[in-house]
């Protein structure tokens, strides 16, 4: 199968700053793929170009068979997005929010089925602004699935969530992949990338410095003779936290 996302020598410059310096990578169909990197590495810029939200200065990119640079509007039809630093308009219930976005895609959808898929069917009548962070994140994933996308872009999907809610979102992302959607996400959390992703690309100063499955990257590092200063314990504080507070979602 050909890659569903294909990026070649992509470039973007903001004045004197070269945010993306000629990166290339492919994402395979039904993969969960992550772009990792410190703030300012160029992750969000890259993702926003692929989402058709920003023009690129050079290179090429196709997403779901659409040339993003030539047809940014066409890409939007085929992808689902969850943006960083974005918000939903106020005064809509979860169900209405799904219906609202269905209008933007000129589609008719079964809003309740989409909400059921993210575990929000019993919150269908609740105003989105009254929801907890985790609920809102799940709503935003439901909304991103309105057009039955080929590729789902998630920009920092679990930032600000408590450990229970993060795990719930991970399960959701896995379910979405199981149903045949490719997922491209960005994150600051290495545990998230390690647990969730098939492959990760690590970006720094606008370039990709490594691209491989997480296990492989860890193996390469160990192969170069890396040893942790402190011996890894069999559990960490998060395990303690989850052991004490359980895996059940708290915002229900």
């Amino acid at each position, binding site marked *: 199968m050909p890659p569903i996302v294909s990026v070649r020598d992509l470039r973007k410059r903001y004045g004197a700053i070269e945010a993306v310096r000629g990166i290339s990578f492919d994402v395979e169909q039904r993969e969960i793929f992550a772009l990792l990197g410190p703030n300012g590495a160029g992750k969000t810029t890259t993702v926003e170009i692929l*989402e*058709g*939200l920003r023009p690129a200065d050079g290179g090429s990119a196709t997403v779901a068979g659409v040339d993003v640079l030539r047809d940014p*509007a066409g890409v*939007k*039809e085929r992808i689902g*997005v969850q*943006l960083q*630093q*974005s*918000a*939903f*308009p*106020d*005064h*809509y219930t979860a169900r*209405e929010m799904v*219906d*609202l*976005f269905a*209008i*933007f*895609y*000129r589609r008719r959808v079964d809003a309740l089925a989409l909400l059921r898929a993210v575990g929000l069917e019993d919150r269908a009548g609740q*105003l989105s602004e009254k929801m907890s962070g985790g609920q809102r994140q799940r709503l935003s994933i439901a909304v991103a699935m309105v*057009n039955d996308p080929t590729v789902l872009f998630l920009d920092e999907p679990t930032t600000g969530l408590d450990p229970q809610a993060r795990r719930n979102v991970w399960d959701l992302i896995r379910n979405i992949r199981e149903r045949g959607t490719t997922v491209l996400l960005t994150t600051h959390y290495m545990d998230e990338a390690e647990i969730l992703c098939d492959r990760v690309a690590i970006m720094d100063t606008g370039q990709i410095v490594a691209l491989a499955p997480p296990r492989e990257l860890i193996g390469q590092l160990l192969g170069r003779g890396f040893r942790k200063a402190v011996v890894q314990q069999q559990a960490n504080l998060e395990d303690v936290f989850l052991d004490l507070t359980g895996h059940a979602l708290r915002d229900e």
Partner: protein
Amino acid sequence: MSQILGYTLMLMRAYVRDRAALFFGFFFPLIFMVLFGVLNLGAFGHVNLGVVDQANNPDSASFIAAFSKIDTLRIYRGSQDDEIAALGKGDRDLVLVLPSDFRIAPQRPGTVAPSLVLYENTASPQQAGVGEAILRQAVDQLTFAVTQTAPVVGVRREDVAGRNLRYVDFLTPGVLGMTIMQLGISSVAFAFVVHRQKGVIRRIMATPISRRSYLAAHVLHRLVLAVLQVGVLLAVAVVGFHVAVVGSMLDLLVVTILGALLFLCLGFAVTGVVATEDAVPPVTQLVTLPQMFLSGVFFPRDAAPALLRPVANVLPLTFLNDALRDVSTNGATLFDIRGALLGLGVWIVISFVLAFRFFRLD
């Protein structure tokens, strides 16, 4: 098109749940109307008339009784010195002196008709003018009655002047104009600046809806709101305050939509130059406040200082208020108010160009 209509309906749905928007859109202008209308804060609903009866005969008594029945006149009686002093202090708008030779009788050739003397308070020209008109009317009718001639002029004029007199009649179109201005400028600026800052617009623009359709729905939504607001306010004015809308409702609708278009464009232009929510109130006030006070919302434009009058005459809200008021209180047709409509048209073009130049979604 169905996308635009669908989105417009969703915008309406959110609007009816938005208490702040409802307050500013409906309740706030109603408060103005009730406050200024019921309490009559505008205070030119009455003409304070001092009457000095030097004749003190049956004729003068019946003459005074004739116009005592006119609601808009508040009649005070006193000596000439007292009444002139009261006029000087601003307690009277007009003082009428009936000379000692006052008679109601057809004049025989060769005699001189007794002349009424009218002192006017130049500080309240509006009231003095109205009072004088009423008195002339009374004198004319008296003349007709006595001389048995048919009235030839002035009957219609009294009708219109009588309607103009109530402050709430004057106020209502002004409040409508103000509401349309606020809807266009303040509500657009707040909605778009906040949505831009929070990333709501970014999220929507990540879907395939075009900018054009997105904006079209917002414009349509607010045009519908403008018509609803005007409808509700007019209904309250007519039912609650017995405001007589003389002109055609259809003409009012046309003027409302033109005014809403004008202020929406201006609102979009303002939104372009405001970056943050904090900057919205000062910038919108800068645009709306001068118009609230100079464009004849609460007071006639003549009340503005002479220096500002040339500016006041060409403000966008001035054209809107003039058009609304002329239709509502004078029964003017669209053809009669073509001057104001032309002014609105010129402003629509100017503000559209400004909006096109400055408005941005991101």
